[in-house]
């Protein structure tokens, strides 16, 4: 099992949680976990009813709007009332209580800083919740937004726990004792196996396969089940693929991460695009992983699309609780795009709006990045550090004295290896600038221009070829080169790559649109 302790004991365990709550630094001032304001009672009762009646629209309203406004009004810096205090209003419904606690902890993480005991309790709650879902006894229909938030928060809390645990220096004896005692809480195997189990149990990969053959509907209904079934396991399984991509990126395992995402066709709309947070997180990690795999063109393409999408739609999300997160990821992706385009100047792939935003933010830095001097490296360092995921060390700490912090180790390693790659490519921008102005030239000429001997030049040219030709997931060689060349004996012939315009997809979209319009017209009755 992912955890070694027994969940039947939860109520007994709960006193401990309350105990820890009471001791939580600033949370105790005037907070009575058993006090339930009327508005909260109404909220809980209504939410419970809507869930039982499978009224997704109302659930979504309450979840997105009421929960936020109540939090803003009543629980700005205290937790929500404890689950025990509201349980009898909802018939002590086991699953509802798990959902309530999930939101309770999410609110706590967002507004206060969780104690170690709370982190452990939140893990317990996820275990119970996911186990209920995995056993298939859930018959609810929940909004995609909520299901996404669950997976998103689960991975976030895991990452947060690893960061917290890695700061060993200032741990109290009591914290260390707890860490030792609950060594299964947020254990990396447990986290990965839950996500994996959700993917497998939901049969989501098979569902997406069958959908391609027209045997099943999933994307068309945004994952909802209109035949009386539940969408919870299916959609959680679906989002868990994104969760796995993200965890693997946090671990530095980009190849495996992308593999986990493979069942989702990233070039098309899908359930992952139905929630803005999921859309952004998916593309951010997809792009980052491709950057680390040197598949710059793939990264540029998807960053370009999502940045354009955010540019056009961000005004609609201004009131959303995710708005700040959207803006942050937006900025980070511009930084990553600046890195990609500096290593692989395929500006033609970038749409005009995105390009002008990029120039505004990073134009000057990008010019300096081309120089590949010490200053350029420090800009690569700066942008990478700003935009990379919060890498984690998944293993448990050594509890031996002296206690040392290791929360920066994983980040430093990824940064170092990335800068190593940048260094290997430092001579390529010089080659590129010469290739751009000549259509053909002798090797000896270029060698003179670049102030190297001919045999060194040959190695530089081979490096150029190697670094601009990536290997895709099927093992095929893909050219990322903006300017290319070939050598015939001692003569270099330059080939300018032509812009690749994809008309096919455009026409497909238009055909579908036109069909929609015709259908609408058919429905119009003229009296």
């Amino acid at each position, binding site marked *: 099992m992912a955890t070694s302790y027994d969940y039947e004991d939860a109520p007994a365990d709960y006193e401990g949680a309350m105990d820890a709550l009471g001791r939580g630094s600033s949370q105790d001032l005037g907070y009575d976990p058993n006090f339930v304001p009327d508005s909260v009672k109404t909220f809980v009762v209504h939410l419970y009813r809507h869930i039982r009646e499978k009224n997704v629209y109302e659930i979504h309203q309450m979840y997105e709007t009421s929960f936020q406004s109540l939090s803003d009004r009543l629980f700005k810096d205290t937790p929500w009332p404890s689950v025990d205090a509201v349980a009898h209003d909802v018939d002590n419904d086991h699953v509802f209580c798990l959902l309530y606690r999930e939101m309770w902890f999410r609110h706590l993480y967002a507004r206060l800083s969780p104690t170690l005991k709370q982190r452990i309790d939140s893990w317990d709650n996820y275990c119970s919740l996911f186990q209920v879902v995995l056993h298939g006894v859930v018959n609810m229909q929940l909004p995609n937004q909520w299901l996404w938030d669950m997976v998103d928060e689960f991975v976030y809390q895991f990452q947060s726990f690893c960061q917290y645990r890695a700061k060993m220096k200032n741990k109290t004896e009591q914290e260390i004792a707890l860490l030792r005692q609950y060594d299964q809480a947020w254990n990396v*195997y447990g986290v990965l196996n839950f996500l994996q189990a959700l993917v497998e149990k939901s049969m989501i990969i098979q569902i997406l396969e069958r959908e391609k053959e027209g045997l099943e509907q999933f994307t068309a209904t945004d994952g909802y089940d209109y035949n009386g079934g539940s969408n919870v396991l299916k959609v959680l399984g679906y989002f868990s693929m994104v969760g796995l991509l993200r965890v693997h990126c946090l671990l530095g395992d*980009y190849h495996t991460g992308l593999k986990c995402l493979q069942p989702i066709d990233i070039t098309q709309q899908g359930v992952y695009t139905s929630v803005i947070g999921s859309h952004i997180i998916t593309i951010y990690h997809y792009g980052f992983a491709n950057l680390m*795999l040197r598949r710059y063109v793939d990264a540029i393409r998807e960053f370009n699309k999502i940045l354009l999408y955010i540019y056009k739609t961000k005004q609609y999300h201004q009131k959303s609780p995710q708005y700040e997160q959207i803006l942050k990821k937006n900025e980070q992706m511009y930084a990553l795009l600046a890195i990609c385009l500096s290593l692989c100047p395929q500006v033609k792939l970038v749409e005009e709006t995105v390009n002008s935003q990029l120039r505004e933010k990073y134009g000057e830095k990008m010019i300096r990045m081309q120089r590949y001097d010490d200053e350029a490296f420090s800009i690569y360092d700066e942008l990478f550090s700003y935009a990379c995921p919060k890498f984690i060390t998944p293993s448990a700490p050594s509890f031996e004295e002296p206690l040392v912090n290791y929360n920066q*180790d994983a980040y430093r*390693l990824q940064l170092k290896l990335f800068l190593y790659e940048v260094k290997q490519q430092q001579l390529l921008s010089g080659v590129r600038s010469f290739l751009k102005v000549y259509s053909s030239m002798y090797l000896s000429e270029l060698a003179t221009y670049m102030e190297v001997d001919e045999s060194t030049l040959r190695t530089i040219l081979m490096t150029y070829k190697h670094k601009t*030709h990536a290997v895709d997931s099927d093992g095929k060689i893909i050219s990322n080169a903006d300017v290319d060349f070939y050598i015939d004996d001692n003569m270099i012939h330059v080939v300018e790559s032509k812009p690749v315009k*994809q008309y096919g997809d455009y026409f*497909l979209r238009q055909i*579908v649109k036109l069909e929609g319009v015709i259908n609408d017209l058919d429905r119009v009755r003229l009296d």
Partner: protein
Amino acid sequence: MGREREAQKPQQQVSYTVEQLVAVNPYNPDILPDLENYVNEQVSSQTYSLDANLCLLRLYQFEPERMNTQIVARILIKALMAMPAPDFSLCLFLIPERVQMEEQFKTLIVLSHYLETGRFRHFWDEAAKHRHIVEAVPGFEQAIQAYAIHVLSLTYQKVPRPVLAEVINIKGLSLDKFLEHQVTNCGWILEGDQGSGQLIVLPRNEFNHPELKKNAADSIPLEHITRIFPILG
């Protein structure tokens, strides 16, 4: 959940190949010994599985105290042999920095650096100094030569004989034999006689003959067309 999965009885496990084991148990510490054996098997049978090796490095990452650096070194050598794929970096991303400081890993990192930057002369010189490391893995030389030829054929239509000789580290009579083999089996053409002025015409591909490049923009995957099947029907 890890425990649930490992409950498979030993006699059942025998019928699984290691690849299948990785596919169904990607996050199970109990398959670690199988994966270590599998690395040795890949070395002796000259096969390769990136997925299995990454899976093992991942388990080492989760439980550093179980790490076997000898095995890690073998994985890295196999990853070098997989160039031009970026497998070597993929592995390094998962290996803690303090482990990478060990002498044998430093050597491998230098070798990788030479290959990544096209400095084959340096590579072969360095490899010669560390025969004990690389000779432990059969097929190493051939794999690197294959990578070298790959880079050459991205770059050259016609390559001068001395350049080829340096890059694949074969000279004189052995080079003639090698060329003869490539001419019969891989479509290489020799221009001029066996002096240093000899040119080798490499097979045409879309990278050294850009006119061969198919215009990928015009093709649409069938999956995307299926979206409009209902309309077409």
